[in-house]
């Protein structure tokens, strides 16, 4: 148990455990960022975007190509990733969004799965994984390192955390206190009624998808750096682990999503030195999400179809 003589926790020395907390928070930043990004999209457009990771990965590939095979200034290359995310989201949202408007949230989610599969297929076809050849996208911020508690974090990891925090605070305020924010929430809830209220539906939708797209692109860039090698399949399906953070927040509360993501990262990292559970630590996101969902959903009874519940 917790012994004070030599400060061990469940058998592992505190001095060995400390760095994992730091590493865990950095990992949690990754989960929190993608989780908040997914929930932001859901709050603003009513669509759970399973293509979040794929769009980010594709944008990162574009940045990689611009940095390594052309003489584009790096900052423009990174901007290209963000712009790409915005364009894809806007095109998808404006072209196909209305067609999906009255449908089940499940159907809307499956639509984005279609988009993810298309992007994955194109990436795998045009930029196949190499043999000795691995694509590394390193942001300049990764060269700045700081030592905390015996572990080292770099500026990119801190940026990911800060970005997730800013996103949470900013979006919560935006959706609650601004006119467009309120209009977005109404739109996500019921498009038909909102239209009859005189809200400029198409313009508000455009704003929602555009904002979400920028988040998607920026998150993709940060995640590609944090994962070192541009493994677009891993990045695409990172969305499954990020959904865990989103589910802990019940797809509603951005703050709980943020904290949930951090908790998941911490749990996964801190489990590492405990040899009995270490091999299972990548299940941490899933286990925590299941617990959260079951606990938080314990009072539900019957539901009508067509809503998220």
């Amino acid at each position: 148990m917790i012994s004070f003589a030599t400060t061990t926790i469940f058998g592992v020395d505190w001095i060995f455990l400390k760095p994992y907390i730091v590493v865990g928070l950095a990992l949690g930043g990754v989960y929190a960022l993608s989780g908040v990004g997914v929930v932001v999209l859901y709050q603003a457009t009513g669509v759970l975007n399973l293509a979040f990771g794929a769009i980010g990965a594709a944008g990162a590939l574009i940045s990689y190509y611009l940095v390594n095979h052309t003489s584009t200034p790096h900052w423009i290359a990174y901007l290209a990733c963000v712009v790409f995310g915005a364009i894809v989201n806007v095109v998808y949202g404006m072209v196909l969004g209305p067609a999906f408007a009255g449908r089940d949230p499940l159907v809307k989610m499956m639509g984005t799965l279609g988009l993810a599969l298309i992007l994955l297929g194109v990436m795998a076809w045009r930029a196949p994984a190499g043999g000795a050849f691995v694509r590394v996208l390193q942001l300049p911020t990764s060269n700045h390192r700081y030592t905390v508690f015996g572990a080292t974090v770099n500026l990119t990891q801190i940026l990911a955390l800060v970005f997730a925090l800013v996103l949470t605070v900013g979006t919560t305020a935006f959706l609650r206190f601004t006119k467009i924010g309120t209009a977005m929430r109404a739109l996500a809830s019921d498009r038909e009624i909102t239209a009859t209220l005189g809200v400029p539906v198409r313009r508000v939708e455009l704003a929602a998808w555009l904002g979400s797209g920028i988040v998607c692109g920026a998150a993709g860039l940060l995640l590609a750096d944090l994962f070192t090698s541009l493994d677009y399949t891993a990045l695409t399906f990172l969305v499954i682990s990020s959904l865990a953070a989103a589910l802990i927040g019940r797809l509603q509360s951005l703050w709980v999503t943020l904290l949930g993501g951090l908790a998941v990262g911490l749990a996964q990292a801190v489990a590492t030195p405990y040899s009995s559970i270490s091999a299972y630590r990548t299940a941490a996101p899933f286990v925590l999400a299941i617990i959260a969902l079951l606990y938080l959903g314990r009072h539900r009874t019957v539901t009508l179809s067509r809503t998220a519940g």
Partner: protein
Amino acid sequence: MLGLTGSPAELARGVIGRSAIIVAFLGVALFVVPAVLGGDWIKTLTAVAIYAVVAAGLVTLYGRVGMISLGQIALLAIGTWTATRISYAADLPFPILLLVTGAITCGVGVLIGLPALRLSGLYLALITLMAAGAVNVVLTTINFPNGGHGFTGRTSTRDLSGLQPVGRPGIAGGDTAYYRYTIVVCALMFLLIAAHFASKPGRAWASIRESEPAALATGVNIVRYKLWAFALASFTTGVAGGLLAAQLGQPTAFGFPTQDSLTLLAAALIGGIYSLWGAVIAGAFSQLAPFLFQAQWGIDPNFLLIIFGVGLLQVLLTAPRGIVVQMPKDIANLGKLGAHLFRKVTGGSRSPE
């Protein structure tokens, strides 16, 4: 599956017609296919049948009851694992092995379903995806049994001559015989599901899908019927897992990645989520298409992902009932168009269109 309108004579004709199609289909699958196609096809088509049964579970859960489970592949993996472990532990006749595997998988499915029933729609889908992710991590860590002792049944012996594959039934050791055996068992699973659709559970499920409050008001025990659906889907998937274990011989955790649950659902939607024939098409999409692309036509299988994505979007937007309903319609339309053109070309009378 059974249309319940029309006169008794029409009904009888409908049932006979449908049965005839099924018998003909099975006949071709059992006798014509092995005679015409080679060993590589046979192996692939065996997998098609197995995954069709898994897709049929999706048709039951989503098409009939309105519940989404994104963990069907994880259940398949559990079924395969259970069958593998039991086959090393005890010397059971193969049909008994399949039944026991189905029962255990059914139990697991119900255990997962029970607490999840309070959720609905999106949340149910996502929690099953999370469960699938967790199962996948556990399976890749403990790996599949290979004849060793203990719960995990895995030995790291380096003497490989001693390792036996999962045994096949005595009458169906070879690939072609096993293919036929699989087709028969899968047909039985489909029959089991169809029987459910045609009787009381099917009606209860339909009313639950339409409106839960209304079903509750008419006295349908929602929890019981939802669990029943989970149980049926898990049982049939478990049996499919047992068949897969003997097909593979020495299964590994690589065969069951979490994202396959998503792509199988996409395949089922494209095939037709409201019909059991759609499940057959889904099985073909997920197992036959990659083989065709790569081994037969020499096309990069990544194109298949793109086609999948486009197909999914197309189906969701324009043809929610999937290929199984859309294709006959399209062919009928094509036929009408052809007839129309033919009339025009032969200068027939101008009939009001």
